């Protein structure tokens, strides 16, 4: 019945009404209800795939504040987070106290209470300014867990046991506008520290803000995007070398590490990126076909020399001087200049992976 109605309606209305404000997520849900065919994915999926991205923009190092510098220090494990209910940026001190109390009580569960020289925990929530790209995005929140021994002098540097941050950089403005009032969207969660503490922090967030966490893996197409975007930056900031790690399904499983000089990759990238394009005409966007062509060139070069077809395997890691990304969801950003671009891509991955 439904397909007939939609087909019959179009000749009657000569004006196609495009509804800009309706949430496409709501219509996706009702659409799935009416039609479910084998191998018939709702049209929503087609819109999600980005075929064109803006070329990386450099942000100068002088503008970075110390909090942003803290994000460059280590390798982070990524997860996605659903929107947080009633998270207020003004109440960060309260949240720090609540989280510290929660962690201490979880630790003491099942252990006989003792008065002693146990080290206590201190939690700090800080705002990292300057990362949000539009006014609809929430500011990044950085969380640190210190351990504090009661007998140490007050100005002793405290050991950081765990750190993590929640962020939204360059999120889809249509989606952010359709969220209800009380929800704050910070879809990317990066954690660095022990697994136990990570799980406890996630449990506290789930309890307090009614959100869900999940593993975020970077699939091979996004790793290719990262490699291409980083190579594009070579003209302005040297990437030193482009290293790709592939895993091939041979018996025993073979790992191929393919490292190239930055100069060679940059020349290949320039030749792929519209041969004959002059510097002034560059409109600053990178297409998916260019990335695919770039990788086809790299793989065919490898095949010509070693007779190993890399398409049969999976790309598991990409690293340059600007950062490194692994398939399992680990990311390290080494250079502050192109941090925003990398985070925009990762935020988009998180938004796509998030269950609706």
């Amino acid at each position, binding site marked *: 019945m439904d397909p007939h109605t939609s*087909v019959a309606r179009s000749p009657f209305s000569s004006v196609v009404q495009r509804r800009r404000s309706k949430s496409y997520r709501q219509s996706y849900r009702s659409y799935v209800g009416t039609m479910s065919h084998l191998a018939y994915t709702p*049209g929503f999926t087609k819109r999600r795939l980005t075929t064109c991205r803006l070329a990386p923009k450099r942000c100068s190092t002088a503008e970075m504040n110390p909090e942003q510098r803290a994000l460059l220090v280590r390798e982070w494990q990524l997860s996605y987070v659903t929107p947080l209910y009633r998270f207020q940026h003004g109440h960060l001190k309260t949240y720090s106290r609540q989280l510290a109390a929660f962690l201490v009580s979880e630790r003491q569960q099942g252990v006989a209470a003792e008065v002693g020289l146990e080290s206590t925990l201190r939690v700090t929530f800080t705002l990292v300014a300057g990362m949000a790209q539009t006014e609809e995005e929430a500011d990044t929140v950085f969380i640190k867990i210190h351990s504090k021994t009661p007998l140490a002098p007050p100005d002793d540097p405290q050991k950081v046991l765990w750190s993590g941050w929640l962020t939204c950089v360059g999120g889809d403005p249509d989606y952010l506008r359709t969220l209800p009032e009380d929800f704050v969207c910070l879809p990317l969660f990066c954690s660095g520290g022990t697994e136990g503490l990570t799980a406890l922090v996630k449990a506290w967030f789930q309890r307090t803000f009614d959100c869900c966490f999940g593993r975020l893996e970077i699939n091979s197409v996004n790793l290719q995007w990262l490699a291409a975007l980083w190579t594009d930056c070579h003209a302005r900031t040297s990437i030193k070398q482009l290293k790709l790690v592939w895993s091939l399904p041979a018996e025993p499983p073979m790992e191929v590490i393919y490292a190239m000089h930055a100069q060679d990759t940059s020349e290949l990238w320039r030749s792929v990126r519209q041969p004959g394009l002059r510097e002034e005409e560059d409109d600053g966007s990178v297409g998916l076909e260019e990335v695919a062509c770039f990788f086809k060139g790299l793989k065919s070069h490898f095949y010509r020399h070693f007779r190993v077809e890399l*398409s049969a395997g999976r790309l598991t890691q990409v690293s340059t001087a600007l950062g490194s990304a692994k398939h399992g969801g680990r990311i390290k950003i080494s250079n502050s200049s192109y941090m925003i671009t990398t985070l925009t891509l990762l935020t988009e991955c998180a938004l796509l992976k998030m269950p609706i």
Partner: protein
Amino acid sequence: MSVLRPLSKLPDINAASVLLVENEEDFQQKLAGVMVKEKSVMVKVRLAKSLPLPAKNEQNRPRIDLVVFLINLMSALSLQSAEASLKHLGQGYFLGKVCFMVTNARHAALPAERMLAVRKLASGLRCPLLYAEDQTPDGVTNAAERLLVILRVAAGCVPMTTALFLSNLTSCIVPTEEEEQQNLDFDA
């Protein structure tokens, strides 16, 4: 010369032959083992890694009723090899005698672009696209049963039904932008 044609040989009575093309040569063995056990029709299964088929077997080869391309979605090479093999298939096959079967469609690490590319390929050629699970014996049996349904029709063993007729009902569809917009506007 090296192009496979559907009607160049005479058919056998109550027999059907299928060609399974797969780059990894793994799933096709399992499928073949299940499909030859069929009793109602005598099924002959030919296995190939890619087309064109070697010329030296040309004399002994029976008439191929159905060509199935088995694509493993986790490997980009699988899809590329299937696309390259399509060029060596005669036009007569695309009237219902070609079928695509993909495995690993639900894998967590699958890039969505590859799935969309396979669906566009199948819908552009008006061929059915089947999803299979190849790791368990049950999955292999189910996949073989579905292929046998199409094979029986393609070989002419089902009265009043032709391969073209069946492919019109089962072919893969990828809607264009305008159709999607109409379908989404429906629930306003």
